[in-house]
């Protein structure tokens, strides 16, 4: 999971990566339509590894940029391992999380604890599996608490429901609003049948995902750190009516420490 490898993976159609100061120096028209807004800034200079002293820091402009989305596919053979298949992105370049604030504490042994507070910490993404099936999911790190060494600190986060409680499905059924059964089906209670219970009763509860982050380089002069991450989280459950798929997201991240 090296930083260079991850960076090279997305060299295809994306603009040249810029440092934070270079990004701030761009004008609106230069950024518009170029894809730069979806990229995390890279470090200018700095050393390998996590070089900050123990203490508590406040993390600003924590940015996570995925470089690959893969979805777990159940193996058709019994006992066969599950594999993650490559996907095609449907929702274009809007998947990067940014401007996230967090608290980072470094203890004497050099272990990190990152507690996420708030920011643009969710992004709705839809990918397409080979075969045409579309998998929407909410890429997020809400309420993340990650602990561990700088070489791999991990934790779990909250994945809210892709749809809210007031979302109506094509038959007008919703959680906190809308119908509560399939109206317009023939009379005789057909709308309220048990088999339709999955579709009639909407479930907007959230679930959890896991992420592992690794610090690749840091710059103590400017207070920036950067690295790679790998996150596994469930996809959309269509308000409780279908089983979620597991999505693995790999990418790079960077942050500014105060």
């Amino acid at each position, binding site marked *: 999971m090296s930083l260079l490898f991850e960076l090279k993976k997305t060299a295809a159609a994306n603009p040249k990566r810029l440092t934070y100061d270079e990004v701030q120096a761009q004008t609106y028209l230069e950024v518009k339509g170029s894809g730069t807004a979806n990229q995390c800034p890279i470090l200018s200079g700095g050393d390998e590894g996590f070089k900050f002293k123990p203490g508590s820091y406040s993390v600003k402009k924590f940015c996570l940029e995925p470089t690959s989305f893969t979805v777990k596919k159940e193996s058709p053979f019994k006992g066969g391992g599950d594999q993650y298949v490559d996907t095609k992105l449907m929702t274009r370049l809007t998947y990067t999380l940014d401007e996230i604030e967090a608290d980072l504490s470094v203890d004497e042994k050099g272990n990190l604890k990152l507690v996420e507070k708030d920011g643009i910490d969710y992004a709705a993404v839809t990918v397409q599996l080979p075969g045409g099936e579309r998998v929407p999911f909410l890429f997020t790190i809400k309420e993340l608490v990650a602990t561990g060494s700088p070489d791999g600190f991990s934790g779990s986060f909250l994945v809210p429901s892709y749809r809210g409680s007031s979302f109506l499905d094509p038959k007008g059924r919703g959680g906190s609003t809308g119908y509560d059964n399939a109206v317009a089906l023939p009379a005789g209670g057909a709308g309220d049948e048990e088999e339709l219970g999955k579709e009639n009763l909407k479930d*907007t*509860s*959230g679930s959890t995902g896991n992420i592992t982050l690794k610090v690749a380089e840091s710059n103590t002069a400017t207070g920036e750190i950067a690295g790679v991450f790998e996150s596994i989280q469930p996809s959309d459950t269509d308000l409780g009516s279908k089983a979620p798929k597991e999505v693995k997201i790999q990418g790079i991240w960077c942050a500014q420490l105060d």
Partner: protein
Amino acid sequence: MADEEEQGVSRRLALALAAGALVATGKVSTASAAYGEAANVFGSPKQQSGFTTLTGDGFKLDVPSKWNPSKELEFPGTLLRYEDNFDQKSNLAVMVIPTDKKSITDYGSPEDFLSAYSYLLGKQAYAGKTVSEGGFDPNAVATAAVLQSKTKDINGKKYYDLDVLTRTADGDEGGTHQLIVASINNGKLYLLKAQAGDKRWFKGAQKFVKGVAESFSLA
């Protein structure tokens, strides 16, 4: 001859003086120009306040003229209920509930009074779990915020005046402004609730709803 002329002149003078005095005091009701009456020549322009004053059983209230009476009994003790002609979300209701308290201040602060009568704002009927409502607490799809609360003193009686904004997760009308005015008189609690959605509030309903709340007074 001279006497008659003098009398004539003095009578004419008296009449002119009387007419002048009447015009000066402005008590001439030529403004009401009903059919057959003289036109509104010297009177003041008719004041359109947009409200009609209603006197109920023990209270007085200005109701917006374009609002219609409604037969709905939303809360216990409703005496009257008026709603906007085209939008039922803009309405007012006066409730009278017997009580044993002597003054509205016996309930504590205006916020304490509101907690005792929180059914006026409605209750959330959704019991499901959700963390996907942005701007709402987990599992909450409706919330209320007290924007302003004050204690008024009219004719020696204390009134509680609360301005509440209730919001729901589906963003219905951008939230509802609910103005609640309450006071106690003769062992009865008089409650006025006037509301309008924010969508109408900033387009002019604010003037009407605030006018209703400010005009509510007990006999």
